[in-house]
């Protein structure tokens, strides 16, 4: 008996599919690549054009004005660390990549998550897909991205977007499932339009869980962006990869700690921005 016959090899079907897509939809992918690239470049250059200390001060002031003094301090310390570690450019590249990727992830995951909460069949259908997406090691995401978009920042961004979708989608669905039914019923009974029920009842009630989802999305995206250093994603990932391949402990450590700094920065700023609207007494 030869079990070789029964070997399951999805790659054997997927690779030709990707090749076929590449051959027939090249203009589409090209357009996506150009758009992603230009958005990234403009965001990056906006961050890198002024002197570093101006960016740090402006960010801290904005954080202090729109959120709290504590968040402003976090911004000051984390960005200050990036500058002092000598990795300012790499940090800003990473911040740009993560912000763009998370923005697109949320743009895709949030409406899908709301739909999944409204329609149980969609939720049931999405669940196994999300399970697979969250269990497959992140390196694997890079392969099709590179096959379609070749090396550089674009496949890094695309892979990061795809990797960031499952946690945000899952937690959006959970958040909307947890909205107390009596509140929604009250909205209907008071004659509120569906839009008012969504924005004035459901989203505010779902906000704590939505923030957790966004936080997960940001942290996983950051992890992916660092891995994407392997395919030329640039930024801190490139520094970590360099540290690894050259066995430079100092560089690796500086880059690693800078990643922590960026993670804390993005997490606290996003939380602060979403929470200050809720002026609830503690």
């Amino acid at each position: 008996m030869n079990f070789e016959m029964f070997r399951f090899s999805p790659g054997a079907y997927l690779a030709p599919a990707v090749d076929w897509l590449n051959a027939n939809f090249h203009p589409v992918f090209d357009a996506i690549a150009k758009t992603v690239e230009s958005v990234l470049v403009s965001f990056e250059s906006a961050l890198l054009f002024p002197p570093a200390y101006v960016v740090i001060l402006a960010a801290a002031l904005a954080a202090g004005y729109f959120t709290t003094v504590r968040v402003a301090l976090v911004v000051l310390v984390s960005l200050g660390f990036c500058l002092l570690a000598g990795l300012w450019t790499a940090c800003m590249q990473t911040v740009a990549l993560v912000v763009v990727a998370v923005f697109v992830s949320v743009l895709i995951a949030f409406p899908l998550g709301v739909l999944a909460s409204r329609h149980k069949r969609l939720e049931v259908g999405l669940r196994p897909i999300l399970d697979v997406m969250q269990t497959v090691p992140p390196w694997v995401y890079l392969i099709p991205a590179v096959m379609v978009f070749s090396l550089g920042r674009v496949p890094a961004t695309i892979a990061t977007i795809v990797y960031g979708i499952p946690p945000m989608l899952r937690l959006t669905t959970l958040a909307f499932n947890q909205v107390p039914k009596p509140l929604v019923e009250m909205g209907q009974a008071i004659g509120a339009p569906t839009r008012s029920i969504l924005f004035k009842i459901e989203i505010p009630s779902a906000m704590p869980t939505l923030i957790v989802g966004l936080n997960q999305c940001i942290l996983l995206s950051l992890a992916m962006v660092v891995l994407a250093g392997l395919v030329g994603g640039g930024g801190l990932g490139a520094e970590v990869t360099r540290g690894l391949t050259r066995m430079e402990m100092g560089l690796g450590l500086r880059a690693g700690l800078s990643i922590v700094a960026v993670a804390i920065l993005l997490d606290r700023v996003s939380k602060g921005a979403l929470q200050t609207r809720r002026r609830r007494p503690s």
Partner: protein
Amino acid sequence: MEMKISDNDVLLDCRNIWKIFGARAPAAVKAVSERGLSKKQVLQEFDCVVGVADASLQLCRGEIFCVMGLSGSGKSTLVRLFNRLIEPSLGTVTVKGREISGLNAAELRDMRARTIGMVFQSVALLPHRTVLENAAFGLEVRGIAKEKRNQIALAALEKVGLSDWTARYPSELSGGMQQRVGLARAFASDPEIILMDEPFSALDPLIRKQLQDEFRQLTKSLGKSSVFITHDLDEAIRIGDRIAIMKDGVIVQVGTAEEIVTKPADDYVADFVAGISRIHLVKAHSVMKPVAEFRAEQPNCDVDALLRTTPDADIGELIDLTMRSDSDAVAVVHDGKIVGVVTIRGLLRGVAGTPAEARAAA
């Protein structure tokens, strides 16, 4: 004593309404309308649960109509059929002459916003909004300018005695105060009908009683009408002008508190009213005996010399009168004419109620 109901006065008219839940509900509905199946048959044949079965009731202008039933009796389903939070399977609901199943989404929203308010057992206040913002929520979703809606909401909060709490959040309020905010939110929209879905059930007895009195007083003074759902017969008697008793989705009896207590429709209702104090419910007209009968029993007694009272005097008042009187009877006078006599025996029967055997014989 019959309340005169003209068609103009009926604000909410619900006729032969059914709600059937379950996977095969449409087939069950068809069977009910064509073959007149009972609830039990629907459950056996279609595996569908009947929430409300063939319920009819009319809410008149200025009336507080209580629907009393235990949990699972379908009363919360029934009240949600009145503003179409639940679509009826069969039957019609007419609000101010318009059948609500014919309304489109925008018309339905408008009707809910302007004509039918609702107060929930769970209160359903938005935790991230202040008391004032919660009370103004109905006006806000209707697009009324902030200044105007806050002014109206403040007036509504004043009516329920919460004008000092406007800037607080719901979590800072006690249960009773939260429900007052719920009431203020309903009154702020100035609807003609207010649906109350067990609003006071979760409150402690003293606060509940206080809110019941306030609600009745407020509703009457503002000229509103209300359908009030409750599982508490005392509450229904305290608040309701008329009461409907529901059991397993069916309205068993509709009547005033006195009618339900003195003439229960079946043993289920009789069991319910057994523990109710009748002293302030039962009136002279239902315990008096005809003058001729009294004269035949006590030929020596001069009916014209008896102390007099009205047919609406309750047993408490009648006892007081009898104690003050020299004789053992009180004459009941209506339009200047003696229409009956209440004797001590009649009073005793009124306090104790008519036993089941006597009811069956009657």
